[in-house]
């Protein structure tokens, strides 16, 4: 197991390096315009452009450019020229909102996803199963911005059930915190509930066909115990890997749109504002941090998965 962890971490470092190179390429190499000009953004004066060029080393060879760029990003010195503020500070300010959104949504979608998947699988072919399948396919197909705008219009305007925007920090007022986040949470969760319930259903139906389930039945265990301790337990393991991939994708995907529509002021909204203003430094930082987070989180879930499957945890066998 220790060897597994070490190998995984080593691989991860290489990927992180490659990710940083690619981010550098995306922002500073591929586009067909002057990099300093691009970074200067909207209020570009010639002097500003010149000073950026020196500061970032665009007149130097590529490796130096890369190094300068990375240094800026990782020492917290990245500045958004258009807005004249420190990018990393703004990002840190936005983290609580973004993570509150993503984690809350994750809890909801995992709970309902597993619940619906379980019900679907144990009553396969019945009306409940069909209804859940239809709902799931529907859920997967609804774009986040449609759900968000529907919620916004019907539940905050037509019927003033929930607040339309704003983020209240958890420590300031937990109830308001949750109240402001309920609609955003469900906006993000609906898509994934559909997906996870289908995956769990499919896993469970596969596991139900396994020999050890037949053994359990032959031992005289009751159905409930078989379903939960044998079928569900084994079906949940792949879901963990899936969650590892999904959480990062959602945090830096659907969450951005949700933050924009509900004005939550997190990292996602910062990204969206930067897009509007064609302000590249913040996007550079958010992209690289986003990718890093995904890679780290994936590695973590792989380790958890390996721990949960004794075949991997203990290495294979006595044969």
């Amino acid at each position, binding site marked *: 197991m220790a060897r597994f962890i070490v190998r995984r971490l080593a691989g991860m470092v290489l990927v992180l390096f490659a990710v940083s190179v690619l981010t550098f390429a995306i922002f500073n190499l591929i*586009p067909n315009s002057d990099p300093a000009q691009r970074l200067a953004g909207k209020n570009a004066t010639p002097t500003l452009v010149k000073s950026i060029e020196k500061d970032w080393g665009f007149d130097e060879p590529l490796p130096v450019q890369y190094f300068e760029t990375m240094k800026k990003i990782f020492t917290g010195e990245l500045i958004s020229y258009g807005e004249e503020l420190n990018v990393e500070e703004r990002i840190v300010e936005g983290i609580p909102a973004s993570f509150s959104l993503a984690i809350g949504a994750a809890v909801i979608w995992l709970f309902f996803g597993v619940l619906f998947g379980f019900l679907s699988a144990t009553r396969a072919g019945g009306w409940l199963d069909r209804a859940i399948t239809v709902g799931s396919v529907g859920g997967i*197909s609804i*774009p986040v911005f449609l759900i968000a705008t529907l919620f916004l219009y019907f539940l905050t305007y037509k019927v003033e059930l929930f607040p339309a925007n704003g983020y209240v920090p958890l420590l300031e007022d937990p109830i308001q915190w949750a109240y402001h986040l309920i609609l955003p949470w469900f906006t993000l969760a609906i898509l994934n509930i559909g997906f996870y319930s289908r995956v769990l259903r499919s896993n469970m139906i596969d596991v139900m066909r396994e020999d050890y389930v037949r053994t359990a039945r032959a031992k005289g265990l009751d159905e409930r115990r078989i379903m939960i301790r044998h079928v569900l337990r084994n079906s949940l393991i792949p879901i963990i890997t899936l969650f590892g991939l999904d959480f990062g994708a959602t945090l830096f995907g659907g969450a951005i749109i949700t933050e924009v529509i509900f004005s939550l002021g997190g990292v996602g909204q910062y990204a969206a504002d*930067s*897009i509007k203003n064609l302000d590249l430094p913040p*996007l550079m930082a958010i992209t690289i941090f986003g990718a890093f987070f995904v890679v780290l989180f994936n590695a973590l879930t792989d380790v958890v998965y390996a721990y949960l499957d004794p075949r991997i945890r203990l290495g294979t066998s006595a044969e």
Partner: protein
Amino acid sequence: METESHSPWYLAYRRLLRNRLALASLGLFALIVVFVLAAPLWADHVAHTGPNTTHTTQKIIVDGEKREVVDIEGKPIGPVWFGAGGRFFLGADGGLGRDEMVRLMYGGRTSLFIGLTSALITTILATILGLLAGYYRGWTDAVITRTLDIIWSFPVVLLGIALGTALAVGGLKIGPIEMAGNSIWIPILIIAVVYTPYMARPIRGEVLAMREKEFVESAVAQGAGSLRIMFGELLPNLWSTVIVFFTLNIANNMLLEASLSFLGAGVQPPNSSWGKMVSLGAESIYTSPLLAFAPGILIMLTVLSLNVFGDGLRDALDPRSKVRLTRAEAAESAAGGAI
């Protein structure tokens, strides 16, 4: 007793025909395609206006009554349906007073075009990369897989945003390929590249599995070269997977394009797409909700129809694929297992 033998394609075709839900979805998708293809017809003969033509100060006759397209407070006219002979069928959009229905149809053309083209590119790229990586293994595989892994490490939307914004400013120039910042091909290429790893990996997996089978061995024994084997033996067996992935990928791509355009990192002006229309409509969500809902619902219907049809295709081409299982099928496999 003789059993008729049919090609697997024919059997799949029959199975698909029996799946009414899948057929209905295909019909829905076809309807949407017809809808957007009819854009010029509608624009010329019914609405008598274009998608970008503004009518801010105009007045039109609705059921005999004269009404402003955009009133004094800047609120646009709501859905008129056929009250003005088809003009402003769904009302006007925001302060610019453009015909929403016409915009919807033209925007749809962009959305569908981007979705289909990028899906085509992704499918071709992913199939080739998957074949190369799975067949040659060794170094080729390592290089391809590592590269795909790196792209895969970026959250899809984030990567799209990064590329979309960076390229929007100055356009793209790689060797001989040059594109302006607002070219429609930029989002197409971005989306195509972003999703390639998601398709290439499963294809590579299938190629790896197929490679060990006997028909490959016998082809090698007959002296077939690598290209012949890859495209002559392996690829034909991949068709069902490829077709299903292609269909589902169109849906994914359209969703991604909509998200990117919503955020401003997708299609750039003067082009417009459904995603962009949603973001514009969201600005006046309380006064004219339809402006945001209409394109959003159309995106959903398109994606839904593609997903359901794609599922149906997958069931038809590989009935053992475990996505849906009716009670009868579940029981049959209990029987099959016991014998």
